[in-house]
């Protein structure tokens, strides 16, 4: 075995740290492209390729690197420009053309200002600069109220570079833990921090680790649950893509505390970039003696295997996930016994979510006391959310627990686009619920959200405006679960089937008196009778929308009216004759040819032909199409 790369001492770590620092702050200019999935979705690959071609084709001293998600997905692709001794700056909405211009000006020694939206701190060890007239990143409304501890390195380092991870403090804590702490001390510290599981249920992590440590048997396992499946949620994905080493470090600490020698990361196959980055990270960690036998020369053994999930939402449930790793169908089983007693292959198993594991290195580095200062009495620390939907600033945010929903929506998210009215915020995905305007001053913590009929969940936050029909939202989530419930237990399977039948009926205007009450009784039964958490929470979207928007349900059922004008069967498009100038744009765009009329004369919509797709409404510049 090649032992030249093994890290067995603090000196070796320090050497790699110096190497990482010189990569982060080299002596030549550097351009870093944000290449997480969010960046790629808006064209970061084209930006990267254009820049690569430019660097290849011109004599250039510029280095090109990539990084993960920096959070502000709304303005992706984001590019960071570094010049030795000058402030680091971020450019937003970069295109291949603009990145060529940036590169050309960089070579000429100047710095273009178009597209710069903020400056960044220098990497520790180098000078911190500010640029007059450009805000610092922490002054931007989007970042001002955030507190990045878990996402601290995400979007700052090259996720494929162990040296850069170490340069920003990585693995020093593991060295301290392995060399100078007892497993009991590690568990005590995590317990003291009050860290609760970030996967949604919020079980105290320290207690889970202690239970597993105390469980009988020599063989114990660790699992990282990275089967993130909620619609609109991408916290775990961004962490895995942007900072995979912090997960490996956190799990290695957990292994030491619990006494496990083998860990598994169960990641969904729909995350190809996360899988790539994790594989690279795992092989680098092995190469440097940070995984495998005799970690950092301390005699501890721990290795991690990557398991790719097959695409079943229910495999995010811990017992189903374990069944899936074992090669059985991904179906939950009755707990107890809990995985800490009888988990993978019947052995005591600690299963935590990605974000939970990634909290461990910070807590053990900064101490539980520092962690306790963040958050509220019952929910310590920070929480990562993906803020999506009808919101101006879409992005990945990390906020201290206890922050008000209003601050998230209006300060960080900068409110609702197009001056529309806020209607609800959905947390926790298909297991969560909707929270209304009146409850926006609710502090974000496990217990407050639960009380309001929603859940913290893993961190998806979907903002909805006045155009969103809440019955349709409930229908959407139940329809999602129809295919994603495993179908094992009858309350969940039959309950979802019938709830969907009723919701579809209501959306079509065929709802009957008593339907709302039937939905409620199905929902209550599912809560109490289902086997696993998927089933017991599956009715939350229905129950919470009924709780807060009963009038909207009643309007559908009694008046056959959709107040948000969303449900197709209940709306009608109509030409407002006074406003129509007869430009014929709507008639040409109508896929059903349902619109007729002479040029410069008011048009008509044939209701029999209209499929209510809404294209005419979108294309009319005169606002002459009415929706009723």
């Amino acid at each position, binding site marked *: 075995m090649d032992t030249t790369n093994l890290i067995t001492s603090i000196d070796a770590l320090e050497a790699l740290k110096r190497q990482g620092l010189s990569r982060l702050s080299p002596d030549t200019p550097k351009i870093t492209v944000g290449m997480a999935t969010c960046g790629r979705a808006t064209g970061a690959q084209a930006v990267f390729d254009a820049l690569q071609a430019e660097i290849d084709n011109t004599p250039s001293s510029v280095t090109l690197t990539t990084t993960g998600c920096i959070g502000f997905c709304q303005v992706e692709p984001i590019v960071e420009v570094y010049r030795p001794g000058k402030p680091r700056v971020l450019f937003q909405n970069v295109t291949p053309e603009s990145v060529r211009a940036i590169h050309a000006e960089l070579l000429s020694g100047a710095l273009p200002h178009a597209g710069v939206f903020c400056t960044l701190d220098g990497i520790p060890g180098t000078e911190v600069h500010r640029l007059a007239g450009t805000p610092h990143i922490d002054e931007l409304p989007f970042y001002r109220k955030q507190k990045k501890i878990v996402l601290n390195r995400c979007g700052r380092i090259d996720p494929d570079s162990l040296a850069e991870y170490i340069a920003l403090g990585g693995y020093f804590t593991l060295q301290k833990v392995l060399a100078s702490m007892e497993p009991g001390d590690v568990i005590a510290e995590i317990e003291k921090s009050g860290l609760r599981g970030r996967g949604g249920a919020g079980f105290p992590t320290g207690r889970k680790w202690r239970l597993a440590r105390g469980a009988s048997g020599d063989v114990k396992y660790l699992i990282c649950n990275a089967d993130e499946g909620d619609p609109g949620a991408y916290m775990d994905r961004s962490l895995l893509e942007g900072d995979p080493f912090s997960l490996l470090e956190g799990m290695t600490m957990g292994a030491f505390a619990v006494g496990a020698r083998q860990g598994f990361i169960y990641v969904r196959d729909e995350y190809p970039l996360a899988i790539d980055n994790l594989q690279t990270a795992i092989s680098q960690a092995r190469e440097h003696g940070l995984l495998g036998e005799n970690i950092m020369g301390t005699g501890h053994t721990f290795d991690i295997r990557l398991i790719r999930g097959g695409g079943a939402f229910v495999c995010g449930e811990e017992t189903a996930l374990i069944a899936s790793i074992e090669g059985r169908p991904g179906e939950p089983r009755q707990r107890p016994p809990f995985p800490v007693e009888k988990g993978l292959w019947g052995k005591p198993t600690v299963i935590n979510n990605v974000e939970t594991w990634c909290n461990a290195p910070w807590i053990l580095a900064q101490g539980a006391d520092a962690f306790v200062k963040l958050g509220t009495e019952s929910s310590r620390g920070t929480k990562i959310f993906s803020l999506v939907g009808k919101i101006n600033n879409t992005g990945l945010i990390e906020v201290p627990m206890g922050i008000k929903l209003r601050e998230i929506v209006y300060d960080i998210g900068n409110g609702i686009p197009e001056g529309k009215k806020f209607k609800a915020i959905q947390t926790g995905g298909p297991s969560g619920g909707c929270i209304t305007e009146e409850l926006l001053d609710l502090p974000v913590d496990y217990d407050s959200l639960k009380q309001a009929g929603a859940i913290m969940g893993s961190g998806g936050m979907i903002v909805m405006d006045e155009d969103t029909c809440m019955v349709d939202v409930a229908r959407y989530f139940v329809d999602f679960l129809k295919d994603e419930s495993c*179908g094992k237990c009858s309350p969940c399977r039959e309950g979802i089937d019938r709830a969907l039948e009723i919701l579809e009926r209501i959306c079509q205007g065929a709802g009957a008196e008593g339907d709302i009450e039937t939905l409620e*009784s199905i929902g209550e039964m599912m809560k109490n009778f289902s*086997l696993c958490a998927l089933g017991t929470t599956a009715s939350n979207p229905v129950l919470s929308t009924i709780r807060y928007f009963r009038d909207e349900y009643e309007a559908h059922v009694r008046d056959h009216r959709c107040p948000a004008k969303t449900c197709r069967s209940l709306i009608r498009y109509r030409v407002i004759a006074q406003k129509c100038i007869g430009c014929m744009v709507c008639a040409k765009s109508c896929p059903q040819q349902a619109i007729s009329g002479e040029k410069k004369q008011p048009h008509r919509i044939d209701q029999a032909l209209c499929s209510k797709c809404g294209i005419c409404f979108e294309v009319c510049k005169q606002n002459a199409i009415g929706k009723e």
Partner: protein
Amino acid sequence: MLRLHINDHEVTVAPGATVLEAAQSVGVRIPTLCHVKGIEPYGACRLCTVEITDSGRTSLQASCCCPARDGMVVRTDTPAVVKGRKVLLQLLLARCSQVPQIRALAAQWGVKSTPFSPKNDGCVLCGLCTRACAGVMGVEAIAFSGRGTSRRVGTPFRAASDVCVACGACTYVCPTGHIQMEAQTAARLRKNVAAEKKCRYMLMGMVSSKLCPNNYNCRSCTFDQTMEFRFGTHPSLAMGAMRPGAPVLTRSNGKDDQ
């Protein structure tokens, strides 16, 4: 021994017993569809859900899967249990609207009609057949396929099974009589298996593995008849009961194979 309260009864059971077994031992009725003694509990039908207070915490749990603990207080008749059970029976009755056994069970618990549009499925997806096939016989000829509302029981890819030994255990445990053995199919299967397959007793290691002199027609097998007489149940399930500590199977509403 463990002492627990179930409704107004004080019950004493041996460690390892489930809450359902404890209730049955004192005659407290709890409905169940997916549970048969001798087959690993599964917790799929959830009809046996009861309210349990243990160490100061009250929750609703499926009694078939819940190990009895000293000091537990169990109630089978709280409003949440009764109401949920009723809705669940309405749902199952709608699914299996033409199945006499389901109609009878629902009626027993006061559910005579359902607000949901009736379907006519014969299978409640209780998983007894698949568990009998895999867990008792060790064959796995049938299993679940599909997810959510499209879940169903069948052979792999719905093709004729080449591992089924036509033992009939699945037909015996099925609570709705949905699985039936066809005489012709059974004869064909037994013919097929003669060359290389083992009968249930060979599979369980009860008799040495060799060609069956009865051409795998279990009804003419003296060993089989002895087993049934001895245990008063379907022979293949009696095999399950032969395991150390397993209770004797007593279900008697099943149908035998031809």
